[in-house]
């Protein structure tokens, strides 16, 4: 299914008739059915996985069963419509955002061409306003006076299987990146609508395996891959050998589950086992070693990423709760978080509300610079970029910028840290201090207007490759721009999903551009005590002047 060759896709996205290329659909949107075929949907969750979640959070994941997306019988419960309508009612009562976003949209269309899925597919239902209308039409039918009286004229339609299929298709073609909400005059956030839509789908047992299985793994083993504690530890320790080979320094500080450490360090677990996240992990360790940070990594809470965010707020809370639980058990003073996008959306906007107050922790204070992180005074968790930028500002890191001279770097703002947190200049400050060749992508594609990698919120799965490559096109195209103009060959980011998805995206659209975490570039530039003459960077690519 991965399917369309890049050369062919390059033509298709421009020539293929779509709303993006100027051709207008002949049928009204509610007459166009969602048709599933291989490559345009994620596989449904396995029965055993749904059973597992249903046991932990009864009633939220529907009846465990085997079902086929392409079939016309999803083996739904008899009262599935009632479940959905009651579910909407419950969510309207719980979330003011949902009520307001249902009522206030004027369909001005400002969001339409802001969505990466729309830009890449030209599918009208990928315009954020349309995606929300899929939900709103049902809301009007059952919850508004106008909809009850006027029906179709008021844009109302009853919940049917056809609508359910649309929901499953288009709420899984949204990465909750919030770009549309930046442009909306009322701040309507499609991410909220998609979240609610997915919660409702889960209620009737419609979910994808690529999200629910990692979520189950995270719950049980601590990380989404299901690595057991010893494997997690061995994987991490294996990277110590690699660091030694590249730098000549044997790091002593890596440790796990240590009570009494000052700082608990939580990362997206992919940084321990997936290329190129592992190089980011090496970067973290080198920083900590150089400054002598008293930290520990937990195998129990070894996943910063939160697949619950992609299902429902209950599972999000449950998975996230491990962070504070582990910090309390280990008796640390505060928590430091690695480079991850949606992990930080959860930490920044949800964690303290869901699982706080964290009164057993102290207001984070950098033991090296003495900086008190007042911006994390309540949540007590600091982003590694904030931490590192502070170190650099206080000249606490020994840096040789030229060690990144073999790279021309640009920076991709992750949607979640950009639009759900405001972490924009910290990574840039770091980048400008650790590498000489740094170029920004065009204005409309960075910072708060950054484009998603195209595969966030659990869409990073192999069965929808074409869709992902299309959705990632706006990002890839901006990378193309700086690659052509400035010879950019390294796309840096502060997100683990990005490190996985941008890799695939660049291999497709910009094969000469590699992907790295910001901390990897810091690691490259760090001058360690007792190091050998560095000939390569952390991924064993020769440094500038060392190519021979």
């Amino acid at each position, binding site marked *: 299914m991965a399917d369309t060759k890049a050369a062919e896709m390059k033509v298709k996205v421009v020539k293929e008739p779509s709303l993006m290329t100027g051709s207008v659909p002949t049928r009204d949107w509610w007459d166009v059915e969602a048709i599933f075929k291989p490559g345009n949907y994620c596989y449904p969750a396995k029965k055993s996985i749904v059973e597992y979640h249903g046991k932990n959070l009864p009633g939220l994941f529907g009846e465990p069963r085997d079902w086929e997306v392409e079939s016309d019988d999803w083996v739904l419960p008899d009262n599935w419509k009632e479940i959905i309508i009651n579910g909407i009612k419950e969510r309207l009562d719980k979330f003011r955002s949902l009520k307001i976003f249902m009522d206030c949209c004027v369909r001005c269309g400002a969001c339409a061409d802001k969505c990466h899925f729309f830009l890449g597919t030209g599918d009208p239902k990928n315009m954020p306003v349309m995606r929300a209308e899929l939900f709103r039409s049902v809301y009007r039918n059952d919850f508004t006076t106008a909809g009850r009286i006027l029906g179709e004229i008021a844009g109302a339609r009853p919940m049917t299987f056809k609508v359910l299929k649309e929901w499953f298709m288009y709420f899984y073609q949204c990465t909750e990146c919030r770009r549309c909400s930046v442009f909306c005059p009322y701040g309507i956030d499609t991410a909220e609508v998609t979240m609610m839509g997915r919660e409702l789908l889960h209620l009737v047992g419609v979910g994808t395996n690529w999200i629910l299985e990692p979520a189950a793994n995270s719950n049980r083993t601590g990380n989404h891959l299901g690595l057991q504690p010893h494997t997690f530890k061995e994987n991490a320790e294996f990277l110590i050998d690699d660091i030694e080979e590249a730098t000549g320094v044997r790091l002593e500080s890596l440790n796990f589950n240590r009570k009494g450490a000052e700082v608990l360090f939580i990362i997206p677990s992919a940084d321990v086992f997936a290329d190129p996240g592992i190089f980011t992990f090496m970067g973290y360790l080198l920083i900590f070693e150089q400054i002598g940070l008293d930290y520990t990594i937990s195998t129990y809470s070894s996943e910063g990423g939160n697949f619950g965010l992609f299902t429902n707020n209950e599972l999000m809370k449950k998975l996230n709760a491990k962070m504070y639980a582990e910090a309390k058990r280990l008796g640390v003073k505060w928590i430091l978080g690695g480079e991850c996008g949606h992990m930080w959306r959860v930490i920044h906007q949800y964690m303290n*509300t869901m699982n706080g107050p964290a009164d057993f922790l102290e207001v984070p204070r950098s033991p090296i610079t003495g900086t008190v992180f007042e911006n994390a005074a309540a949540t007590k968790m600091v982003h590694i970029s904030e931490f590192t930028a502070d170190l650099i500002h206080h000249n606490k890191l020994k840096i040789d910028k030229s060690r990144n001279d073999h790279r021309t770097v640009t920076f991709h703002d992750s949607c979640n840290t950009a639009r759900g947190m405001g972490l924009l200049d910290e990574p840039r400050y770091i980048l400008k201090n650790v590498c000489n060749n740094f170029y920004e992508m065009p204005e409309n594609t960075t910072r708060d207007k950054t484009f998603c990698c195209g595969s966030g919120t659990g869409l990073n799965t192999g069965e929808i490759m074409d869709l992902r490559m299309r959705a990632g096109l706006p990002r890839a195209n901006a990378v193309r721009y700086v690659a052509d103009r400035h010879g950019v060959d390294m796309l840096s980011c502060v997100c683990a999903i990005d490190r996985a998805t941008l890799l695939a995206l660049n291999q497709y659209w910009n094969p000469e551009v590699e992907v790295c975490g910001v901390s990897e570039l810091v690691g490259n530039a760090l001058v360690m005590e007792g190091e050998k003459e560095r000939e390569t960077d952390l991924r064993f690519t020769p440094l500038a002047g060392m190519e021979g």
Partner: protein
Amino acid sequence: MRVLKAFIAVVALVLVALLVAQVPGGQSLLGIVLPYLAFAIFLGGFIYKVVDWAKSPVPFRIPTTCGQESSLPFIKQNKLDCPTTKTQVVGRMLLEVLLFRSLFRNTKASIHDGPQLAYGSNKWLWLFGLLFHYSFLVIVLRHMRLFTDPIAGFVAPLEFVDGFLEVGATTIYQSSFILLAAVTFLFLRRVVRPYLRYLSLPADYFPLMLIFAIGATGLLMRHVFRVDIVSVKELTVGLVTFSPAINGQIGAIFFVHVFLVCVLLAYFPFSKLMHLGGVFMSPTRNMANNSRMVRHENPWNDPNIKPHSYEAYEDEFREFMVESGLPVDKQPEPAPAEPEAGQAAPEEESKA
């Protein structure tokens, strides 16, 4: 088709008003009963809707951050797009409400051979949206000359500024024409731009046409089919002093105008026009980005949702943990326990 439905609705409303205005008692209905009813529906409906929104909590602090957060002293915070204090939020909201700041960001995307995506500046919607809303406001305020006796102080300067053109017998207010032009633009873009035509509902065309009709009947009344303004004001002041009466003859065009306004008022709370209230209550805009500084309370936060406990985790993996040198809270039993059966989450290859 959807345009037609809205058009037919507005034409029908005009005809109904024309007809009723000729029937005995019809003028009292259109000029007295319906205005009271419509205004009551408007106020009541508006309050009901806002209270209904307010009945749902804002469980999470979810501002859309459109600029740099407040973090380190040497990194400059964008106080308006990523506010952390109430004052900054007020600043952000004022820009949003008074100047439509988010709409000002609007761009237009296009795709070209390559493929190459381009994002051009596109401020027309912002401009005409702003013109529309402000001219509407000016017109409403100008109408206060008919509802206040003695006339409120702001009316004269407003009329002076708004009406520096005088062609023919009656002063021409530019706001009237700006309103009609802006409504026309907003309508045309819906019809002309393919994606907008595709997503627009009758509920999008209807208010535009209704407001156009209100503006047009107003202009006709002022410049073409003149009515006796003194009798009109006796009625309108009568309405707001609760002593309404129709004295003298008032032309039918007045009743059409008033009827359409009544429809707009009554329609308001049940429609997308409620964005007037919603823009103030949108959680992505009216919240400070201080969720890591101050704990935000969620009234329905469920304390019964607990993490998979460390104890359960250690129980499951204790043996392996001890073997690999990981510290454990409880030392293993002499005879190691069997690994738990029925593990639901099997191991798989890397996902991220």
